[in-house]
C-alpha cells in the first residue's frame, strides 16, 4: 500500500485504527523514560531543581511552533495539491497547537516567577508567542464560523499561510531584540550549549511530546472524518424529508 492510498478516508481510518494503539504505547513509554530521566537529572548550579520545569516548558514551546508548521503544510496541501485529507489535518491540529502554546505560556510563567521575579513580561519572545496563541484561537474561530467544512478549510488555509510569518519572528525574537527570555541554546548554529546530562532528558521529553502530538492528531483526524460523515448523513436525511 503506497502512501498515496492514505488519501482515501476509508483506508486512512483503517490504517490509523491499526497504528494508533502502538503509537499510544510508544508515547507512554517515551513519557515514562523522559520523566524518569528528568527526575534524576542533576540540579542546575544556579536555578536548583527549578530548572526541571524546562523539561516540560521547552517541548511544549517547540511543539507550539511545529504544529503551526504542520498546519501550514496542510494548508499548502489544501490550496495547491487539493489533498482530500489536508483540511482535516489542519482542522484537527489547531486545537492541539493552541493547547501546547497555552501550556508553554503557563509553564513558562510559573518558571518565570521564581527565576525572573515576575509571572509575565512584555518582551519579544513572550509577546510573539502570545500573538501565536491568539492566532490559533482565530483559526479555530474561523473553522467554527463557516458552515461548509470545505469552504472553511480553504479560508483557514489562507489564514494559516498568512500567520506562518510569525514563526521566524518567534524563533529569532531572542536574537533580534533585547529580551528577558534567554537566547537559543539547543537549535542554534554551533550546536547545543546545554550539558548532555540535561540535554538528554530534554530531547527524550521532546520526542515524547512529538509522539503525543502525532497520536492525538491522528485520533482527532479520525474523529473529524467520522464527524463529516455524520453531517453528510444528516443533510441527506433532511433533504429526503424535505422532498417527501
Amino acid at each position, binding site marked *: 500500500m503506497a502512501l498515496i492510498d492514505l488519501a482515501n478516508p476509508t483506508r486512512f481510518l483503517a490504517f490509523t485504527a491499526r497504528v494508533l494503539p502502538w503509537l499510544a504505547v510508544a508515547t507512554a513509554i517515551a513519557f515514562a523514560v523522559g520523566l524518569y530521566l528528568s527526575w534524576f537529572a542533576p540540579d542546575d548550579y544556579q536555578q536548583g531543581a527549578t530548572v526541571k520545569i524546562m523539561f516540560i516548558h521547552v517541548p511544549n514551546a517547540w511543539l507550539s511552533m511545529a504544529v503551526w508548521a504542520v498546519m501550514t503544510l496542510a494548508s499548502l496541501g489544501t490550496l495547491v495539491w487539493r489533498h482530500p485529507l489536508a483540511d482535516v489535518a489542519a482542522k484537527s491540529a489547531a486545537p492541539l497547537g493552541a493547547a501546547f502554546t497555552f501550556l508553554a505560556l503557563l509553564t513558562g510563567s510559573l518558571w518565570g516567577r521564581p527565576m525572573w521575579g515576575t509571572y509575565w513580561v512584555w518582551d519579544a519572545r513572550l509577546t510573539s508567542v502570545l500573538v501565536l496563541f491568539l492566532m490559533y484561537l482565530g483559526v479555530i474561530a*474561523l473553522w467554527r*464560523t463557516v458552515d461548509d467544512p470545505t*469552504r472553511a478549510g480553504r*479560508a483557514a488555509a489562507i489564514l494559516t499561510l498568512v500567520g506562518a510569518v510569525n514563526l521566524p519572528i518567534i524563533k529569532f525574537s531572542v536574537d533580534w531584540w533585547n529580551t528577558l527570555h534567554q537566547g537559543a541554546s539547543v537549535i542554534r548554529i554551533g550546536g547545543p550549549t546545554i550539558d548532555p546530562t540535561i540535554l538528554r532528558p530534554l530531547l527524550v521529553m521532546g520526542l515524547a511530546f512529538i509522539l503525543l502530538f502525532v497520536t492525538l492528531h491522528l485520533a482527532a483526524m479520525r474523529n473529524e472524518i467520522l464527524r463529516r460523515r455524520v453531517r453528510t448523513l444528516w443533510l441527506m436525511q433532511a433533504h429526503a424529508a424535505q422532498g417527501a
Partner: protein
Amino acid sequence: MTPLSALLVRDMRLAVRVGGGALMGVLFFLIVVTLVPFAVGPDLAQLQRIGPAILWIGALLASLLALDRLFAADHEDGSLDLLLMGRAPLELVVLVKAAAHWITTGLPLVLVTPLLGLFLNLEPSAIGRTALALLLGTPALTCIGLVGAALSVALRRGGLLLPVLVLPLTVPVLIFGVAASSAPAAAPATALMILGALTLMSVVLGPFAAAAALRHGLE
C-alpha cells in the same frame, strides 16, 4: 476612464455618501480618544506619555470598523461576482478597493490627528511624528485588514470574527508605529523605516492573500 479608476471613484463615492463614510471613522476616533482620559484620569503628564499609543489604538479600531463594509456590501448586491468575473486581475481590483478604503478612512484619521494630539497634550514635534507614522502605517492596517475582510465576506454572522483575525496580524504595525511616534529625537528613523517596510510588504502581499480568499471563499 479605465475600469480600475472607475472602480476607485465608485468606491470612494460609496464610502463618502453611504453609511456616514469618512466622517464616521473620524467621529469614532474622536470618541475613543475622548474616552481614554475619562478612564485614566486627566493628568496631562501621563496623557502626554501615552498619547501616541492612544492615537494608534484609536486609528486601528477606526480602520477596523470600515473594513467589513469593504467586500460585504458588494457581495450582497452581486457586484463582487462581477468583479471576480471581470477582465481586470482580482489582485489589482482588491488593491484599488484598498486604496479607496485608505483614502476615505485612513487619510482622514491622519488629518484629524493634530487636533486630537492637542487633547492629549502632545508636543508639536510629537504630533508631527505621530501624524507621519500614522500616514506611513495606516495603509498597512488597511491591507492587513483586507485579508480578514476577504475571509469573512460570505459569513452571515461574522460578528467579531473580523477583528479577531485581523488584530493579531496588526500587532507589529502597532508596535513600530508607536515606537516611531514616541521616539526621542535620537533614533526616530529606525522605527519609521521598519514601519515603511511593513507597509510595503502588506501592500504587496495583502492583495494576493485577499484575492485568494475571495476566489476560494465564494466558489
